[in-house]
């Protein structure tokens, strides 16, 4: 079927098999390979992207379901000049990653969280990241990064 998805602001149009998963559409059709396939069973959250602004696990969404909708991947977070998003900067500053495989999903889940709750408590952050697994077990710095990002992300949205 023909699918048109707005990915990071650009319309991507392609003829794909009906069974194509969104994550494969992003990686193989749109050539945006930052979104990782981890567990492939809706558990680990490595494939998290935003669908119309809300976090989803793109291994469990059909490209057809995203047809006509907007998707944001981690490649789409930097602004026009290439400056990183406040959440990306916070992950860097707080060392919120070790091997980095879960990071695109962690960052996108965080962007979704901060859009819904601009000033989360530490407990709320931990609860909001329940769907994202870090096999390096680097959770403490990830949580620290999210808490550090919250004011800056809020400022960016209101500007």
């Amino acid at each position, binding site marked *: *079927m023909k699918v048109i998805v707005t990915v990071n602001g650009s319309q991507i149009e392609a003829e794909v098999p009906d069974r194509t998963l969104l994550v494969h559409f992003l990686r193989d059709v749109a050539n945006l390979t930052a979104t990782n396939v981890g567990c492939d069973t809706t558990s680990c*959250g490595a494939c998290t992207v935003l669908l119309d602004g809300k976090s*989803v696990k793109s291994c*469990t969404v*059909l490209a057809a*379901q995203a047809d006509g909708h907007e998707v944001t991947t981690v490649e789409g977070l930097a602004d026009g000049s290439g400056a990183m998003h406040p959440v990306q900067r916070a992950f860097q500053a707080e060392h919120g990653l070790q091997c980095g495989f879960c990071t695109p999903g962690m960052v996108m889940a965080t962007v979704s969280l901060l859009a819904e709750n601009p000033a989360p408590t530490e407990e709320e952050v931990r609860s909001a990241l329940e769907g994202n697994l870090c096999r390096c077990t680097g959770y403490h710095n990830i949580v620290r990064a999210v808490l550090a990002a919250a004011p800056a992300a809020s400022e960016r949205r209101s500007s």
Partner: protein
Amino acid sequence: MIPAPFTYKRASSVDEAVDLAARSGEDAKFLAGGHSLLPLMKLRLAVPEVLIDIGRIGELSYVRDDGGQILVGALTSHDELARSSVLASELPLLAHAASQVGDPQVRHRGTIGGSLVHADPAADLPAVVLALDATLVARGPSGTREIAAGDFFQSLFETVLQPGELLTEIRIPKPPNRGWAFQKFTKRAIDWAIVGVAVQGGNVALVNMGQTPVRASGVEQALAGGAGPRDAAAHAAEQTSPPADINADSGYREHLARVLVGRALEEAATRA
């Protein structure tokens, strides 16, 4: 993993969905959020020939106060249930249980209707609608029918819905006794409950204590007879047939049921 090949169709209204299903044969399935169906399809545990995407039917996503009852559209997502101000004031049990399903990403996509028709006895919302004495409304080729939640769940992953019938609405009477609680025990936050319990007033329903969600009738009778939470909870595992699996054996689940029901009844009593 990708699903086996299928033909994707899209419905923009309930009428169109029912019509498409009637013309698509018995191997057609409705696709809502896809968070029960797509994982099964990737594992080849479900191999439908046709998927009818109902996810864009806006008319099925709502929570309304209808006076004596609350009406919930089948396509309302877990996240929308959790954030509903109507549910927060009238049916906090449903709002809270929905906020405990899976994780945020799953709650953004998963729907109450999808969870109910999937009929996984380990899922949270089937037991919740059972505790709330809900009525489920289904539309099929021969019209609309209402099914009591107690008659809806037949067996593991099996409901009374016929092929081509679409769950459209959940009707929940406003509970006379407002005490409620929801408890579940999991190994990881995102796991299905090893055992769970939903309490609304004197109604007690159990998650993962049999082939379907079940009412803990022994507990309910004890409560009706004036027993306190701890004494009533001792009956929690009666007439259940809990599964044994990698997470727990049946005896452990029976123990958990008694413990969780006791905690839930005590919690509900503080809100009554």
